[in-house]
C-alpha cells in the first residue's frame, strides 16, 4: 500500500510555452527600448520561476512586470504599434498559459499526460490574441491618417458596447 504521490507542479510543456511567449515579448520590448527590455527580462524570470515552482503570485508578478515593460516602452520610448502589441500579447499569454499550467499541475500533477490539453488551450489563446492584434493593427493603420487618439478610443468603446450587446 503506497500512498499516492502526485507532484503538484505544472507540466513541462506548459512551462516551456510560458517561458517562450514571455521571452518573445521581452525581446520585442528590448528592440524598442533597452530599459523596457530589461524590465521585460525580469518579467521573463518571474514568469519562468512562478510556473516552475507553481506559484500564482510569482507568475502574476511576472506578467505584471511584462505589462509595465510595455507601458514603459510606450511612454518613454514612444515605441511603435509592433513591439507594443507583441509585448502586450506576450504578457497576456504568459498569464493565461501559466495559470492554465498551474491549474493542471494542481489538479493532475506533473506525471499526468496533459499534452493535448495544453496544446489545445495554447492554440486557442494564441489564435484569439493574434486575431485581436491583427484587427486592431489593421484598424489603426486604416485610421492612422492624422485622426486624433480620442477617435481610436471611441472606436474601442464602440467595440466594447457591441460585444456587450451581442453577449
Amino acid at each position, binding site marked *: 500500500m503506497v500512498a499516492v504521490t502526485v507532484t503538484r507542479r505544472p507540466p513541462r510543456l506548459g512551462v516551456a510555452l510560458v517561458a517562450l511567449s514571455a521571452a518573445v515579448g521581452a525581446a520585442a520590448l528590448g528592440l524598442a527600448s533597452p530599459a523596457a527590455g530589461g524590465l521585460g527580462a525580469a518579467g521573463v524570470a518571474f514568469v519562468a520561476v512562478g510556473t516552475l515552482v507553481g506559484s500564482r503570485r510569482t507568475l502574476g508578478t511576472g506578467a505584471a512586470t511584462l505589462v509595465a515593460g510595455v507601458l514603459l516602452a510606450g511612454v518613454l520610448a514612444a515605441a511603435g504599434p509592433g513591439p507594443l502589441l507583441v509585448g502586450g500579447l506576450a504578457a497576456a499569454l504568459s498569464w493565461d498559459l501559466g495559470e492554465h499550467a498551474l491549474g493542471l499541475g494542481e*489538479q493532475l*500533477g506533473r506525471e499526468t499526460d496533459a499534452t493535448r490539453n495544453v496544446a*489545445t488551450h495554447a492554440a*486557442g489563446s494564441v489564435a*484569439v*490574441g493574434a486575431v485581436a*492584434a491583427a484587427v486592431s493593427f489593421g484598424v*489603426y493603420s486604416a485610421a492612422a491618417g492624422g485622426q486624433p*487618439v480620442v477617435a481610436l*478610443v471611441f472606436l474601442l468603446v464602440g467595440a466594447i458596447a457591441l460585444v456587450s450587446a451581442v453577449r
Partner: protein
Amino acid sequence: MSGRGSDSRASSDGSTGANGRNVDPLNPIRPRGVVPTGRWTGMAALALVPVGLGVLLRHPPLVLVGALGVAFAAYARGDAAPDLDVTIERDLSDPTPDPGDEVTVTLRVRNDGDGVLPDLRLVDGVPAALATGAPARLGTALRPGRTATLTYRVTAVRGAHDWDPVHVLARNPSGSRERDARIDAGGTTTLRCTPELEASASLPLRGLTTVYSGRVPTDVGGAGIEFHSTREYRHGDPAKRVNWARYARTGELSTLAFREERAATVVVCIDAREGAYLAPDAESPNAVERSVEAASQAVPALLDSGDRVGVAAFAPGDCRLDPGVGDEHAARARKLLATHPALAPTPTDERFLPTTWVRRFRRWLPADAQVLFCTPLPDDYAATVARRLDAYGHAVTVISPDATADDTPGHRLAGVERANRVSRLRSAGIRVLDWGEEPLATELERAAARWSR
C-alpha cells in the same frame, strides 16, 4: 451508462477567489456544476491603463495594447460553459486477480455532445486500498464523437474494491468557466481479489474440545494412540485394549487407556478496529492484513483436521460466520475473509462500541468454543478482551502480528507497551504467538515446541 454533469449549482461563496484559487486539490469540498474560475478577473480594468496613458500622452499605439486587453476580457466573458455529455467506460484486464497481480485499468471517455471539449480533466476514483504511485489522471481535449483513453496499473490486494465515480472537470476554451461533475463509469467497477485458503503447519490447539472425535489430545482416557493410563478390566472392554503383556506375566486382566483425541470448535477472531490498522512502515502490509493472512492459514488447517471453525471480526459491522465443517463452509469462510467490508484493507469510519461487541460476541460464541484471537495488541483493551474471554472458559490463543517499529522514541515506546501486554497475557496463562518477520508456519512450529498441552 451515460452521465450528464449536474447543473445544480451549489453556493459558490468565498471558495471562488478572485485569482482563480478556487481549485484547491487538498480541499475536496468544491461546488458542483458550473463554477467561474476567476482567472481573467481584472483584465478589463488593466486594459484601461494603456488606453488612459495613450490618451494622456497622445500616443495611439498604447491604445492598441488596451484593445488587446479588451479583446481577451471579451473572450473570457463571452465564453459559455461547456456542455459535459460524456460516456465513460472502465475496463479491468482481470476483474478477479490473485493478490499481488498487476491489473491494467483502461478508462475510455467519449464525447457524446455536439461541441468540442477543449479542456477535459479526469481523475479516476481509484479505491483507497489500490491507490498506487502512478496517477489515474488525464488531461486532454476531445472533439465530438472522439474517445480518449487513460491506462494505468494497480496492484491487486485482498478484498472487493469498488471504484468511485470519475471526477470530471471541463473548462471552456478561455478557461473562464468550468463544469465540475462526478460521473459513474460503465463497465467493470469492482475488483474482487480472493486469496486461496492455504493450510499451513497444523495449529496447536488448547484442551477445550467437543464430544466429537478429532485431533486434539485430551486428558480423557479412552480409545486413541498416545498412552494415558491402565485400569482394572471391566466387562465389555474391547479385547484389543486389554493389556495382554501384563496378563501373560501375572494372569490379571487390565485395560489400557489412551488419550482420547477429540475435535474442537474454534472461532477465529480478527481485530480489525481502526486502531489495528498498523504497519511498521508505509510499504509493509498492515496488521489487519497479516491477521487475515493468519486466519486464512488457520481456517483450512483446522477444517482439514476435522475441527469446527467459525470466523468473527472485532470490528464495526456484523462480521460473523457460525462454526461449521465441510467444503461449503470453507468456501464461505474464504469469501468472508477476502471480501467482507469489516476486514477491508483500509479502515472504515463506522462507529464502534467495543463493550457492546464483546457482550454480543459472548452470547453468540458456542460454550465449548476456543478462540483464536488475531490482534496486533494495539491497546490494553485487546488484551482485556483476550483475558475476559479466557476467564469465561473459552481457551484463548492470541496470534499477534508485530506492527511496531523502532525508528523513533515514540515507536519504541509503543513496542515496549506491546511487549508488556504480551507478557501480561502469558502470565495470565494465555498462549501468545508473537508473530514477527518470519512466516507464520515457522513461528507456529517454534511455538508448538514451547507450549505445553
